[in-house]
C-alpha cells in the first residue's frame, strides 16, 4: 500500500509542478537563510577567538587614551623611557615590545603592496608568539643603530616576491630601501577583518627616524611571565604608568591596559550578539516561507477537496487519502529542507572564504531548521487535507 501511496503522491506533485515548486522554494529560502546566518556567525566568533589565542593568552596591550582600537583621543603617546622603566621595575613582565606603526606602500621591482610598517624590537616576536619561516630577527646593532632592515609577513612576501626567496633582497618603503632579513611564519587570516600576516616589522628606531619622525611609541605589548598573575601585573603597570604620566589621584587613566582574555570576551560577545540578531532575521524569513506555503496550500484547497471527493468516490479509504497528502507534504518539505541545506552549505562556504572566516558545519542548526521546515510543510499541507477527507464524498465533490 505504501508504494501505491508514494506513486499517487509523486503523481500529485508532478501534476502541480508550480505549486510544488513554490512550496519547496519557501522552505529552501527559509532554511538556507537560517543556516547561513548561524554558520557564518559561528565562523566569525571562532575566528575572533582563534586570532586572539594566537597572540598568546598572557599578553597585556597598552595604548594611550580610553578608547578601544587604534588611534588616540589626544592622550600623549608613550616614550622609549617608559618602556625601559617597565622592563626594569615590573618583575613579572617577560617581554616588553614597544610598537609604533605607519602605513606605507612597499615596492619590490615592478610590484608594490600597501601595508602597515611596525617599528618594534625583537621582544615583539617573543611576546606575540611569532616564529620565522626564513632568515633571522634583528641584531642588537641593527636595533640600536636604526638600520634599514625588516622582517616581512607572509602576505607581503607573497605579494612582492611570489616564489622567490626574499631574504637578502632590498625592498623600497616610501623613500628608503630596506633589506629583508627574515620572514614571519603565517598565523592565518584574522577575524576582525585584518590579516595578521600583512605587515612589515622594522627596528623601532628605524621607523621613528624615517617614517614617523618622532620619538613616540604609539602602544606596547607586555607578556607576563608564566605563573605570574595577570591581574597583579596589570595593577603594577597601571600604577607605574600613572606615576610616569603624572596623573593626579582623582584623575582617570589616560591610557588603557587590556589583557587578551578581556579582548576575547569583548569581541566574542559582540559577534555572538550579531549572530543572534542575524539569526532572528533569518528565522523571520523561515516563518515568512512557512506563511507562503500556507497560502499556496489554502488557495489550492478547493481543487484538492474535489480531488479528495473523486478519490473517495472511486473507493479510496480516508486513511489512504490522508497518507497520500502526508507523503506529499513530507516529500516536498524534505526536498525543500535538503535543497536549503545544500544551498546554505555552498553559500556559507563561499561567503566564509570571501570573509576570511572558518567554515564550521553546525549539525544542530541544520537539523533544527530542517525539522522546522518539515513541520511547516506537514502542518500546512496535511491539516487542510484532513478536514476534506473527513467530508462525505458527495460533499467533497460539490465543494465550491
Amino acid at each position: 500500500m505504501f508504494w501505491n501511496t508514494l506513486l499517487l503522491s509523486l503523481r500529485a506533485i508532478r501534476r502541480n509542478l508550480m505549486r510544488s515548486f513554490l512550496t519547496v522554494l519557501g522552505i529552501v529560502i527559509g532554511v538556507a537563510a537560517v543556516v547561513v546566518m548561524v554558520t557564518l556567525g559561528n565562523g566569525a566568533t571562532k575566528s575572533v577567538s582563534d586570532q586572539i589565542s594566537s597572540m598568546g593568552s598572557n599578553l597585556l596591550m597598552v595604548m594611550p587614551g580610553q578608547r578601544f582600537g587604534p588611534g588616540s583621543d589626544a592622550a600623549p603617546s608613550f616614550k622609549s623611557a617608559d618602556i625601559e622603566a617597565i622592563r626594569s621595575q615590573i618583575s613579572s613582565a617577560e617581554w616588553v615590545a614597544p610598537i609604533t606603526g605607519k602605513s606605507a606602500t612597499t615596492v619590490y621591482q615592478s610590484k608594490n603592496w600597501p601595508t602597515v610598517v611596525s617599528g618594534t624590537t625583537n621582544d615583539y616576536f617573543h611576546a606575540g608568539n611569532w616564529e620565522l619561516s626564513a632568515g633571522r630577527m634583528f641584531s642588537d646593532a641593527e636595533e640600536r643603530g636604526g638600520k634599514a632592515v625588516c622582517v616581512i609577513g607572509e602576505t607581503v612576501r607573497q605579494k612582492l616576491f611570489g616564489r622567490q626567496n626574499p631574504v637578502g633582497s632590498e625592498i623600497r618603503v616610501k623613500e628608503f630601501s630596506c633589506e629583508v632579513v627574515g620572514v614571519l611564519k603565517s598565523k592565518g587570516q584574522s577575524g576582525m577583518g585584518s590579516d595578521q600576516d600583512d605587515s612589515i616589522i622594522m627596528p623601532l628606531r628605524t621607523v621613528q627616524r624615517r617614517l614617523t619622525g618622532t620619538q613616540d611609541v604609539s602602544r606596547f605589548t607586555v607578556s607576563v611571565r608564566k605563573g605570574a598573575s595577570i591581574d597583579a601585573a596589570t595593577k603594577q603597570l597601571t600604577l607605574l604608568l600613572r606615576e610616569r604620566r603624572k596623573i593626579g589621584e582623582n584623575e582617570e587613566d589616560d591610557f588603557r591596559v587590556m589583557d587578551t582574555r578581556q579582548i576575547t570576551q569583548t569581541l566574542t560577545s559582540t559577534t555572538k550578539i550579531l549572530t543572534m540578531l542575524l539569526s532572528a532575521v533569518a528565522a523571520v524569513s523561515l516563518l515568512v516561507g512557512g506563511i507562503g506555503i500556507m497560502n499556496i496550500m489554502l488557495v489550492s484547497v478547493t481543487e484538492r477537496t474535489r480531488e479528495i471527493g473523486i478519490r473517495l468516490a472511486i473507493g479510496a479509504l480516508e486513511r489512504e487519502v490522508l497518507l497520500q497528502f502526508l507523503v506529499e507534504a513530507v516529500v516536498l518539505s524534505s526536498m525543500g529542507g535538503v535543497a536549503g541545506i545544500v544551498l546554505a552549505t555552498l553559500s556559507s562556504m563561499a561567503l566564509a572564504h570571501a570573509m576570511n572566516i572558518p567554515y564550521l558545519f553546525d549539525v544542530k542548526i541544520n537539523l533544527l531548521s530542517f525539522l522546522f521546515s518539515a513541520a511547516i510543510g506537514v502542518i500546512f499541507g496535511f491539516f487542510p487535507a484532513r478536514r476534506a477527507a473527513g467530508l462525505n464524498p458527495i460533499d467533497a465533490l460539490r465543494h465550491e
Partner: protein
Amino acid sequence: MSASSLISLSGITKTYGRGHAAFQALKGIDLEIDSGDFLAIMGPSGSGKSTTMNILGCLDTPTSGSYRLKDVQVELLERSQRALLRRHCLGFVFQGFNLLPRTTALENVELPLIYRGEPASSRHEAARAALAQVGLKGWESHTPAELSGGQQQRVAIARAIVTRPEVLLADEPTGNLDTRTSREIMDLIVSLNEELGITVLMVTHEPDIAAYARRVVHFVDGFLDSDERKREIL
C-alpha cells in the same frame, strides 16, 4: 420480488438538518433491482432521485430503512467498509465528469486500480483496454483539458468500468453534453449493459435519455411514484 435480486431498498428515508429546519428528502422508498438491469431514475428536482442515487452508491447513508447490496446490509457498514464496497463493486459516472485535472486519461483510468493494489503492468494493460473499449484508443496521454466533453465523459466511463464493477451508477451522465454526443454516450452505456452484463443505475430528467433504459422509475416528493418496464429482457 425475489430474494435473489442484486439490490434491495426497503423503507429508506433520508432527512437533512434537524428540528424546524429538517427536510425529509426520502419518505420511505422500497425498490428491488435485479442483476443486469438498466434502471433510469427520473423525477423533478427535489424529488429525491439524486439522494437515492447517493445512497445506492454508498456515498451517503439513509436516516432509516434497510439497503442490501448483494448480501451486504449497507446501512450497517462503517465509512471505510462502504469505501471498500465502492472500490470493489461500484463504478461512478458524474454529470461533471470529475476527472483529475492535469492528469492523463490513462492515469485517470488507472486510479481505481491503484487503490485496488493492482501491479503496474496489469494496471496499464487494463486501463488501456478500458480506454479502447470506450473508443479512446490513442488518446491515453491526453489530459482532460485537451479532450472534448464527450471524450472526458468516455474517460470517466472507462475509469468506472476498468474494475469490472457489478453496478455502474451514472448521475445525469449526459447533462453537460450536446444531443449527438449524448446519444453516443448512451449507446456506449447500453452496450456495456448488454455486452458485459453490468447493472446500470442512471439518474436523468430527460425522457429521451431515460428511453435507453429497460426500466424507469419516477420519484415525486420523496416517494416512488411509478415503475415501468420499457423493454422485456430477452
